[in-house]
């Protein structure tokens, strides 16, 4: 430790990794966000670095295992205007992050589609062509799973699910935005919605008796009837495990990528600090390779969520012989985990 400044800087950048606010996990972000704000700002605007040390001193006293995250515009607003407010206000304000970023994603898609499909022409404009390719590709994909008979009924829900998750995952790569799927609120909401919808489909397609029959494992014969209570319990537990795994898979993937980006931004900053010997407002862009990983994983996770939802819907539909091979193929995918 050669200088006092270095010490404060070193401590504050170490403190990021260990920092937390007791009330909210989001509290860590805006505190940890300050130095990372400099790195992000360097890519786009300039911001003064002098707030770093004041912030390092203000950084939380409680040690907890809370990982750094890259800041977004809500944490920056919070830092600029509401820096010294109560913990309850913090929690309320930063808890809105999930809503605000979901709304931004939805607005983006809505405006894009409205501009493209306002007056659809026979020879399409490029934007309209893009949207048509996207929708038709999705339609073909889901038709291959559910079967042509039922796909038109479920396609709006599944395609919106896929688009919402895809746009939200991609928002993690845009500076000053944050993926709302990195918060358990959004992913749990999506999973609960899917669960309710699947059960609703099961009830309306099969009737209450048929639904219970399906849950009991569709027994056909004396031995299966005798084992049907056991199957019933297993199936009910399985039905509850499905949305849990959906939510956790998406949440873990997107949050993990966010944390990875945040950790590498902090590393880039500390390396730049060691080179320059003083606090600078940008660091080595070490997190760039992980953007590509983020692209790939975001796409895959959206696909997997929509695919699994479609398979659950398929399993609830009445099986006839033609659907049976699709169901087996679908179960093979589902049982692969």
């Amino acid at each position, binding site marked *: 430790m050669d200088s006092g400044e270095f010490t404060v800087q070193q401590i504050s950048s170490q403190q990021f990794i260990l920092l*937390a606010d*007791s009330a909210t*996990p989001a509290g860590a972000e805006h505190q940890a966000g300050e130095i990372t704000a400099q790195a992000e700002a360097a890519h786009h605007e300039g911001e003064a670095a002098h707030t770093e040390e004041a912030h390092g001193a203000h950084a939380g006293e*409680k040690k*907890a*295992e809370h990982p750094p995250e890259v800041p977004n515009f809500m944490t920056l607003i919070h830092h600029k205007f509401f820096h010294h407010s109560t913990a309850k206000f913090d929690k309320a304000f930063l808890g809105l992050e999930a809503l605000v970023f979901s709304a931004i994603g939805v607005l983006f898609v809505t405006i894009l589609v409205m501009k493209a499909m306002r007056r659809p022409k026979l020879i399409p404009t490029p934007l309209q062509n893009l949207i048509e390719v996207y929708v038709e590709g999705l339609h073909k994909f889901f038709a291959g799973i559910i079967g042509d008979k039922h796909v038109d009924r479920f396609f709006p829900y599944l395609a919106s699910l896929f688009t919402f998750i895809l746009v939200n995952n991609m928002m993690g790569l845009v500076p000053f935005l944050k993926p709302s799927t990195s918060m358990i609120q959004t992913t749990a909401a999506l999973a609960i919605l899917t669960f309710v919808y699947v059960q609703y489909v099961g009830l309306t397609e099969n009737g209450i008796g048929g639904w219970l029959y399906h849950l009991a494992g569709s027994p056909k014969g004396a031995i299966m009837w005798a084992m049907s209570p056991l199957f019933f319990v297993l199936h009910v537990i399985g039905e509850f495990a499905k949305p849990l*795994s959906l939510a*956790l*898979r998406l*949440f*873990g*993937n997107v*949050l*993990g990528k966010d944390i990875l980006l945040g950790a590498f931004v902090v590393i880039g900053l500390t390396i730049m600090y060691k080179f320059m010997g003083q606090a600078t407002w940008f660091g080595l862009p070490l997190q760039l390779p992980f953007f590509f990983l983020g692209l790939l994983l975001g796409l*895959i*996770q959206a*696909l*997997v969520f929509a*695919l699994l939802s479609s398979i659950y819907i398929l399993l609830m539909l009445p099986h006839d012989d033609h659907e049976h091979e699709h169901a087996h193929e679908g179960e093979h*995918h589902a049982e*692969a*985990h």
Partner: protein
Amino acid sequence: MAFDVTTAIAIGYPVGLGIAALGSGIGLGRAVGQAMEAMGRQPEASGKIQTGMIIGCAFIEALTIYALISVFLVPKG
């Protein structure tokens, strides 16, 4: 040596995570290996095989990620 919760968590959590990573490594290795073999046998089906492989890998990866995010369930102090 005093036994406290922080030490226990500090030892237990990474070991558990390592074992989860080991399991997913084995699973993914098998899945991708068999996909490569299938692609070698029938190159014209490689598009479908690749899609199925990616989807299968996402499921297997998810199990490790459940272990990874269990850090958020650890109580403080």
